């Protein structure tokens, strides 16, 4: 029997399957660019993105060093893009993490214990699923007053139900596996079985879903900022588009650049999700071709 005998070849195998999907490589490259820009934003633009640095309404490439032009108040759009990347990534990652923290335990408990627990937890989940998620997010941010943490919380609160559903489904099918029953027979506690036996085996689909949730979270944050519900202290892509929408005809660059940034980031994350899916579920991936 051939086998993957250690972790290193396991990782290499994973990488080989991932890179078989060309879109996934492009996605990874794009996300790396966004991450690097976010990290070195203070080096690229030492001054605050809110500071007025040039005359307003300056089109792209008109003055050296201001390749993306300036906005209605003379702020550098390039600086806004770089600092906006920080906000988008931060909110995307943190809110997804929080959503996983809510969704995984609920799904795991519902799937593992079944019966009444399952009924109660799933009705609770459906309660969130029946409310349009964007409307709920708006209401939550409006009540809590816009700030980074309230936005993260609002996004996480509308994003967790699919996680709970997915984890529940995986638990339902895994909990009747023989190795789980063997663990029950050896007298392990329910918590130990959930965390040690079942959860590690549900991670592949959860990771794929999480990568897509980061993309959705970025979109949601942009939409909130566009409506003026973003954190007033941080520059974000959605806010830039929202502020520029009244001058769309005179100054296209003010909304197009942040729009393209959102588009590429979300696209890249979706491509990564697809690549992860191919790499983590090799059987399914091959069937599709």
């Amino acid at each position, binding site marked *: 029997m051939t086998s993957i005998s250690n972790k290193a070849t396991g990782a290499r195998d994973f990488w080989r399957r991932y890179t078989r999907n060309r879109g996934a490589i492009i996605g990874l490259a794009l996300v790396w660019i966004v991450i690097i820009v976010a990290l070195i934003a203070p080096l690229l633009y030492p001054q605050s993105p809110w500071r007025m640095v040039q005359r307003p309404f300056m089109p792209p490439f008109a003055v050296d060093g201001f390749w993306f032009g300036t906005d209605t108040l003379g702020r550098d759009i390039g600086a806004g893009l770089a600092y906006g990347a920080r906000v988008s990534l931060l909110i995307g990652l943190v809110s997804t993490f929080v959503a996983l923290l809510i969704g995984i335990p609920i799904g795991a408990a519902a799937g593992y214990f079944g019966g009444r627990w399952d009924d109660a937890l799933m009705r609770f989940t459906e309660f969130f699923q029946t409310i349009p998620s964007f409307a709920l997010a708006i209401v939550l941010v409006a009540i809590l007053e816009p700030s980074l943490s309230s936005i993260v919380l609002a996004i996480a609160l509308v994003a967790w139900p699919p996680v709970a559903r997915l984890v529940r489904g995986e638990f339902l099918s895994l909990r009747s596996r023989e190795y789980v029953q063997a663990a029950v027979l050896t007298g392990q506690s329910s918590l130990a079985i959930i965390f040690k036996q079942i959860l*590690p085996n549900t991670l592949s689909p959860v990771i794929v879903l999480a990568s897509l949730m980061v993309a959705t979270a970025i979109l949601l944050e942009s939409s909130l900022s566009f409506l003026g519900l973003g954190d007033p202290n941080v520059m974000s892509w959605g806010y830039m588009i929202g502020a520029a929408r009244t001058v769309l005809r005179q100054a296209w660059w003010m909304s197009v650049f942040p729009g393209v940034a959102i588009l590429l980031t979300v696209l890249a994350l979706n491509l990564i999700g697809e690549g992860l899916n191919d790499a983590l579920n090799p059987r399914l991936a091959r069937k599709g071709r």
Partner: protein
Amino acid sequence: MTVVSVENLAVALPSGADRKLAVEDISFRLEPGEVLCVVGESGSGKSVTANAVMGLLPKEVRPVAGCIRMGERDLLTLSETEMQSLRGSEAAMIFQEPMTALNPLMRIGDQIAEVFEAHKALSRRERQAKALDLIREVGLPDPEKAIRAYPFELSGGQRQRAMIAMALALEPKLLIADEPTTALDVTTQAQILDLIRDLQQRHGMAVLFITHDFGVVAEIGDRVVVMREGLVVEEGLVDTVLSDPQHDYTKRLIAAVPPLSPSPARYHGEEGPILSVSALSKTFRSGGGLFSKARVVPAVKDVTFEIARGETLGIVGESGSGKSTAGRCVVRLLEPDAGQITLQGEDWRAAQGAALRRQRKRVQMIFQDPFASLNPRTKVSSILTEGPVANGVPRAKALARARELLSLVGLDESAMGRFPHEFSGGQRQRIGIARALAMDPEVLVADEAVSALDVSVQAQVLDLLADIRDRFRLALIFITHDLCVAAQICDRIAVMREGAIVEMGNTADVFGNPQHDYTQSLLAAVPGWGESSPLTRWRRKLAEA
């Protein structure tokens, strides 16, 4: 005129597989009206051979040498369209698992008619009429109803009959059967084998029959090809090969086949029972709400048995007989509805919650599927120590014990640091046994513990089970559908049918002088062990020598 001849066929596996060629230098001929059995253990390349003939090899697996002749043509050089018109009309195939081979959303009649449609034969009305004829011919009960039935409405054997009807539709010259009876109960298997034999004679078809079971070979084959790791090791008439095998591998393989005769009585119950079960019942209810009636399945009805230390009790029965449910009630994975279970004089059903968790180690289980019973993400060291550690054994002590148990079940200590997927099926089953032993159980329930294994591995695992039973003086409840296996290891046997025990007694008595009709029909259905069977003759010769 030869129907199909395979000449020096070699099929390459994708790089990274455990060997370069799936099959190498395979040659055989199949004459009209002949049943050729290809027999071998898993990984011997027998299915690859069958799929090569049908042109059904996966993309990465390709033939690299030789040819497959059918009439004038070499099947390996045909285009996909030419293969398509050949499949069904000249060569047809039936598969192991009829549930997955049939379209679940299509009526049986339509699926048979589809074969004609694919080959643009007959008019719509004629197709339906022909489908009905075929359904009659393969002996599906109530043909007018069966033609409108969906696959889920049929039993396993009936589905396999429907598959055979589809295969026969265009009167092919060649029928390839890939383990067609492996998923079926022994009595159903006997019926399907009869059907294949009968149809083959009536239509003068050639049948290429792939199987791992020498009993089935003895029952249905004219000639046999024995394969091992992609090579043909022996070929000849079934009668000669099975009664006088020449190659060492064939000899070993046939010797490993458990005969349908009980091993000599070993245990004489000199002490009282450690576990006794009385009037155990379990009924499953599913569905049922405000608007629908619940489906009620009585899985176990009034089952009573007892077992002493060092004894093996076999529970045999066909699928759905309730034997696994009974086993699961004993280990308390399922809560019985009624009945008593007494372990060492204590009420075993009284323990609940945390108290039950502390006592669970006393009754352990070995599972059927060596691939599903080990957590794929856990190393063997933790698989073997998680249980004892949860029961308060210090980690270092549990690890030392795990090493001891690994060598006891015949594995190297280096296995500790490896993951389950690095082991073969037999090795995994050994790990499963070690996991159960790590708990120091008093009672061991083995649920179809050797059913998924090749015969040679099966014999080794049976030996291991008998060895640990004697060494630790375990009470072993051995649940199986396979009478031959039960005959090898069990001291006493309980035959279950539809949830109830119909006959129970010493193995020699049950096999030698079965009282109940059902036991008799079960024994009669086991393939290959009749008086005149070559297997019986060889066994007799061995005994005399």
